[in-house]
């Protein structure tokens, strides 16, 4: 792609589809220079998080455009993680050309903070995958030696059998020692801290079984369990890897959100020069420029300029707030109309966003105390199994003799070797395969199912918590509603077109709504926007005004229905009032009804005005609501609910919800929410509908049921298998069959979730 094509592409992509409306924001203003880091051999590297890249076309467009920039050596877009890595020889490329080229293609991109970006290779996942591969190789090959021994034991001479066992030992021992390392490490770490976990019995079983099998092989006897050891490790590693993948996905999502906060700011130096700095580097009393369309990185005071701020995500208010000299701009507010010059009033780590981030941390620490159901099962499992094995050993060592002295004859003495062998068989047969596999398998199936429906679940225990909730608290703006005003007055086509022509020259949310209703068209001539007031311009050679009542129609009567409004005056015609509503999500009422049908109490907590909240609550069918709540009041309300014994699901999108999201038992955010809220939420759902919330609750409850069933199944299995093992009837074949059988059973049970009917498809 040459430079001309690039320019043409940028002209296409920046504006709206009609090419006439001003761009929604000016992503070209992002300056990533502060995030360039030095690579090896005089190379500079920039990593950017590219939003919206989805297909082969995107890869070609982005990588092609990057490589076309003079000086760029290499560009690689990772579609799975949405990261673009561009390298060039030191000093050859100005990082700004990269971000503006990306913006020109129509992709929003954020620079990655190198400190956050460097830890991205998932070492732990790779270790697990290597261990899993080795265990898979070993269990398949050892099976090759075991099956002939089981099936041909009668025809097979003792020497052939021993040879088969030796081969098994050669493959299994190194493989088990290698792929067992994740378990050994964790077991040793737990024991050092004086605790036990699931990995302690696993490690003991592996080491004991390997030793016993080796002794059996060396002495030419039957009971070699090499196949069971390999299969045990293989199955457990599958569960371990699935669990790790789930957590890693959540961690990456959180890290991406953190890295996105690596925003830059334009600082005015003392000599009037503008320079790009990382927002983190800003200090109190620095002067910064905030272009229209940009989000304020820190709390600051306006020193020059007049504009309007979109604070919807901060406070939940739908309408823009005017900003004049001396006004405070909170971090997170979006500047709508005119550039502003600001003086930083508090550094980034004291800003509102940072304070909220701390609140979130506190909330999450509370959540970390949540005990996952698998951990509860393990606490029961470890002591029971170990004492069973110990009792079995003691019984076979001393039992027959004791019973004889008590007058019960008929139980033959067994050797020390046999007593140990039987005790080991108990350890093997009670292997926690089902336990280690049951929970992650269900959670992976459940999150995968939800992911296809546009719901991102950030952790396995989020599902467990979601299944327990009994109350749903919803935010209004942006959660119950779409958070975007929609035209509510019916206008004749001529008036609509004329008003939209003026509106096309503005970035104000109400203007945008008007343009959305009118569709593509030409902007008005000689249009001038007066921030906080409205727009003047010429239509068909006649002066026209669109804006506040005081600006466009000072003599028109005031309406007191509290709705957002614009007035439009065209020449001498009577001014027209255009009213807007913040529309409920299309399925809001249905979803509320569905939640109530599931026995959940529903209430609304909003920062918006009482009138608007009451209206939305009435339409959605919610009886309990509170309006004009501040962030601290929201989390206080959640604390009160918790103190009353309720388990609350909080659904919200704004910065003002972030603390409440973190304080709730479980939380959800729409994909349009601010980064902080998405980071605080357990699940993030995309699209215009609220239905994914119901789907998520249903799936979580079904998943919980499957997990309980799976735990019951493994308990049942142990109830049958343990007596058999303790009585000494277990052979290597029985152990292998039991292990594979129980694991298969719990996995199949987990897969049943896949076929569950979803609420969305059954109700529409």
């Amino acid at each position: 792609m040459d430079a001309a094509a690039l320019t043409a592409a940028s002209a296409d992509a920046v504006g709206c589809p009609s090419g006439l409306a001003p761009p929604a924001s000016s992503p070209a203003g992002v300056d990533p220079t502060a995030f360039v880091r030095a690579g090896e051999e005089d190379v500079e590297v920039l990593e950017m998080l590219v939003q919206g890249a989805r297909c082969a076309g995107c890869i070609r467009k982005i990588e092609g455009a990057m490589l076309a920039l003079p000086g760029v050596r290499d560009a690689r877009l990772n579609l799975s993680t949405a990261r673009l890595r561009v390298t060039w020889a030191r000093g050859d490329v100005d990082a700004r050309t990269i971000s503006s080229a990306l913006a020109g293609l129509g992709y929003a991109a954020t620079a990655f903070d190198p400190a956050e970006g460097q830890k991205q290779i998932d070492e732990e996942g790779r270790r697990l995958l290597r261990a899993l591969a080795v265990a898979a190789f070993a269990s398949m090959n050892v099976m090759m030696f075991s099956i002939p021994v089981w099936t041909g034991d009668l025809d097979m001479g003792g020497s052939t059998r021993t040879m088969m066992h030796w081969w098994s030992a050669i493959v299994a021992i190194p493989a088990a020692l290698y792929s067992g390392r994740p378990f050994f490490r964790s077991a040793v770490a737990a024991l050092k801290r004086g605790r036990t976990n699931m990995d302690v019995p696993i490690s003991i079983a592996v080491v004991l079984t390997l030793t016993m099998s080796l002794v059996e092989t060396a002495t030419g006897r039957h009971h070699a369990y090499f196949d069971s050891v390999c299969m045990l490790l293989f199955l457990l590693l599958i569960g371990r890897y699935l669990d790790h993948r789930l957590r890693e996905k959540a961690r990456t999502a959180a890290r991406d959100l953190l890295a996105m906060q690596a925003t830059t700011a334009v600082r005015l130096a003392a000599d009037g020069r503008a320079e790009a700095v990382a927002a983190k580097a800003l200090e109190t009393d620095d002067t910064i420029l905030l272009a229209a369309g940009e989000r304020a990185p820190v709390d600051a005071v306006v020193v020059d300029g007049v504009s309007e701020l979109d604070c919807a995500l901060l406070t939940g208010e739908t309408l823009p707030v005017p900003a004049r000299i001396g006004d405070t701009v909170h971090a997170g507010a979006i500047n709508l109309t005119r550039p502003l010059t600001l003086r930083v009033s508090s550094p980034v780590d004291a800003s509102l966003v940072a304070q909220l981030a701390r609140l979130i941390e506190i909330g999450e620490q509370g959540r970390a105390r949540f005990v996952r159901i698998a951990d509860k099962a393990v606490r029961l499992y470890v002591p029971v199994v170990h004492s069973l094995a110990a009792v079995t050993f003691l019984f076979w060592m001393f039992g027959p003799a004791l019973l004889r002295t008590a007058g019960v004859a008929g139980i033959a003495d067994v050797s020390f070797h046999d007593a140990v062998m039987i005790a080991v068989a108990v350890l093997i047969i009670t292997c926690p395969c089902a336990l280690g596999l049951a929970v992650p398998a269900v959670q992976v199936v459940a999150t995968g199912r939800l992911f296809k429906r546009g719901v991102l679940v950030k952790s396995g225990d989020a599902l467990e918590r979601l299944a327990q909730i009994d109350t749903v608290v919803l935010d209004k703006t942006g959660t119950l509603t779409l958070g975007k005003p929609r035209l509510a007055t019916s206008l004749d086509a001529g008036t609509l077109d004329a008003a939209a022509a003026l509106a096309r020259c503005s970035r104000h949310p109400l203007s945008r709504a008007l343009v959305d209703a009118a569709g593509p068209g030409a902007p008005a001539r000689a249009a001038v926007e007066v921030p906080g007031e409205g727009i003047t311009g010429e239509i068909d050679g006649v002066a026209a005004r669109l804006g506040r009542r005081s600006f466009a129609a000072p003599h028109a009567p005031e309406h007191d229905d509290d709705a957002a409004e614009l007035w439009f005056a065209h020449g001498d015609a009577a001014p027209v009032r255009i009213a807007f509503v913040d529309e409920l999500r299309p399925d809001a009422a249905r979803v509320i009804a569905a939640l109530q049908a599931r026995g959940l109490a529903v209430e609304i907590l909003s920062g918006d005005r009482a009138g608007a909240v009451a209206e939305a609550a009435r339409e959605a069918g919610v009886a309990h609501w509170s309006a004009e709540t501040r962030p601290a009041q929201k989390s206080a309300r959640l604390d009160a609910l918790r103190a009353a014994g309720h388990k609350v699901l909080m659904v919200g999108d704004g910065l003002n919800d972030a603390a409440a999201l973190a304080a709730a038992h479980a939380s959800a955010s729409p994909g349009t929410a601010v980064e902080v809220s998405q980071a605080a939420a357990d699940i993030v759902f995309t699209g215009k509908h609220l239905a994914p919330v119901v789907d998520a609750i249903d799936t979580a409850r079904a998943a919980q049921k499957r997990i309980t069933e799976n735990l019951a199944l493994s308990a049942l299995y142990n109830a049958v298998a343990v007596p058999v093992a303790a009585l000494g009837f277990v052979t290597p074949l029985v152990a292998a069959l039991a292990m594979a059988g129980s694991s298969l059973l719990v996995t199949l049970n987990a897969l049943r979730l896949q076929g569950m009917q979803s609420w969305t498809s059954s109700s529409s």
Partner: protein
Amino acid sequence: MDIIVFLIPAAVSLGAMGLAAFLWSLRADQYEDLEGAAHRILLNDDDLPPPRA
């Protein structure tokens, strides 16, 4: 049955080769971008200018 003296080492080493191939592909970062790899197959080689190494 003497043949198994050869067949068993042959079978095990074939399996080991498969394992080695997998470990190599893991080390060569081939699983870092599964989604991108699925799409890149649709690109023609001449769509992208070669990286100037």
